[in-house]
């Protein structure tokens, strides 16, 4: 077992080592402090935080609905809402264009009535990132909701709390570790989003050119810089994921003969 686990670890560690090994360390600082890189980094941080916030605001109710209601087609609905996790992002981006673009199912009305065009805006970046990142939050929170002891919620209801008050004061605090974990995963995914973003939002420095796009474009002209930028992203994601520790899974239970 451990041998196989070791191989698996190596398999994940080697590519990182590869990047570290090829990285042009001497010029790292120059590349990182480059004005365009900083702009892209700032934009990435902003949009990914927005995407995380939106994922929470809409993903938690969605997870709640999936965990708590029973209706026919619930598993189809869950599949629908997690599809973007496994879809090639570019396809996701094209689908978003068809939905929210100027000629899209909904976007055309936005355009006609409000003269509003979502693509090419920072908001579009946030939408694309939310589209691919939200499922991570939904899955984590739904699992937590399903495992939650419902008795305290029942208790709150009998004490006169409305559904909403109960949710806010009882349910939400109880699932907060899972919520935090889901948010972190979503954030990391949003931060790394590339294909859907460039397809749906385009790539313009300062408004839609995020860090992954900058990394990609840098490959054409300056592959060394792209390695450094990629490593920066990896470091950020890694730090965020490490911060999850075991909370991601809930603490392991104590074990007993009687357990």
């Amino acid at each position: 077992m451990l041998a196989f686990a070791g191989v698996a670890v190596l398999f994940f560690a080697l590519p990182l080592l590869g990047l570290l090994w090829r990285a042009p360390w001497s010029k790292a600082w120059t590349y990182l402090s480059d004005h365009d890189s900083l702009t892209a980094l700032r934009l990435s941080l902003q949009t990914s935080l927005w995407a995380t916030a939106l994922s929470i605001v809409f993903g938690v109710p969605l997870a709640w609905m999936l965990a708590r209601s029973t209706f026919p087609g619930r598993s189809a609905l869950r599949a629908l809402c997690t599809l973007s996790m496994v879809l090639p992002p570019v396809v996701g981006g094209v689908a978003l264009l068809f939905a929210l673009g100027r000629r899209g199912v909904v976007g055309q009305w936005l355009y006609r009535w409000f003269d509003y065009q979502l693509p090419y805006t920072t908001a579009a970046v946030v939408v694309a990132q939310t589209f691919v990142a939200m499922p991570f939050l939904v899955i984590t929170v739904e699992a937590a909701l399903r495992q939650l002891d419902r008795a305290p919620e029942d208790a709150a209801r009998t004490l006169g709390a409305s559904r909403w008050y109960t949710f806010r004061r009882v349910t939400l605090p109880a699932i907060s570790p899972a919520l935090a974990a889901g948010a972190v995963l979503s954030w990391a995914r949003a931060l790394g989003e590339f294909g859907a973003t460039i397809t749906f939002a385009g790539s313009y420095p300062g408004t839609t050119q995020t860090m992954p796009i900058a990394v990609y474009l840098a490959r054409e002209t300056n592959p060394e810089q792209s390695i450094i930028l990629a490593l920066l992203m990896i470091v950020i994601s890694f730090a965020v994921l490490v911060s999850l520790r075991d909370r991601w899974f809930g603490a392991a239970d104590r074990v007993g003969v009687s357990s």
Partner: protein
Amino acid sequence: SDDNGAPTTTAPGTTGDVVVLAASSLTEAFTEIGDAFTAANPEANVTFSFAGSSDLVTQISEGAPADVFVSADDATMAKITDAALNATDPVVMARNSFAIIVEQGNPKGIATVADLADPDLVVVLCAGSVPCGKGAVAILANAAVTVTPKSLEDKVKGVVTKVTAGEADAGIVFVTDVQAAGSAAEGVDIPADVNVISNYPIVVTKDAQHADAAQAFIDFVTSADGQAILATYGFLAP
């Protein structure tokens, strides 16, 4: 085979599997050329791998199987020759010029490069780091027009997608891209005085497994038959 003296047919009896790494803008044209080549050389077989030119350079330098490499510009080919990954000198097999791509029917009535300066237009270009972006920058400079694009795409098809999806009003792409987009879009010619011509150089790679067949393929491409096919997709003769 003999030297690339532009024979009308390749030497009979060319055998082997030629692996051709070609810029993705050649996808359709080369697919047809491949069919024609194998029809002429039943013993031979051609496998294509299309991708962005610079991705292909990475692949070749990482040892991807390749007998023939075609780049969409000279700068990218220079990376191959600089690294001495080529077995033959680059030969320009086709050229491409740029056009303005607009939606079908040209609803915004765009006629010239200067029209792109209209701030109400949604214009999308390629990023300056990729070949189509370099071309666009040069054309706009030639025409002394300042355009504020909404997006700088990582590849030319990004521009095409935006226009065909109706998300952009216009973009600057290769003439061949306009043609490939078919009925979803149409092109507005850019006059020769401001236009930029981009070369498609072709080489046999250093690690070619079937160098002879590779050369035969290049010969076929540069032959009249090959050139005729390229021409139908909008490529200019070298």
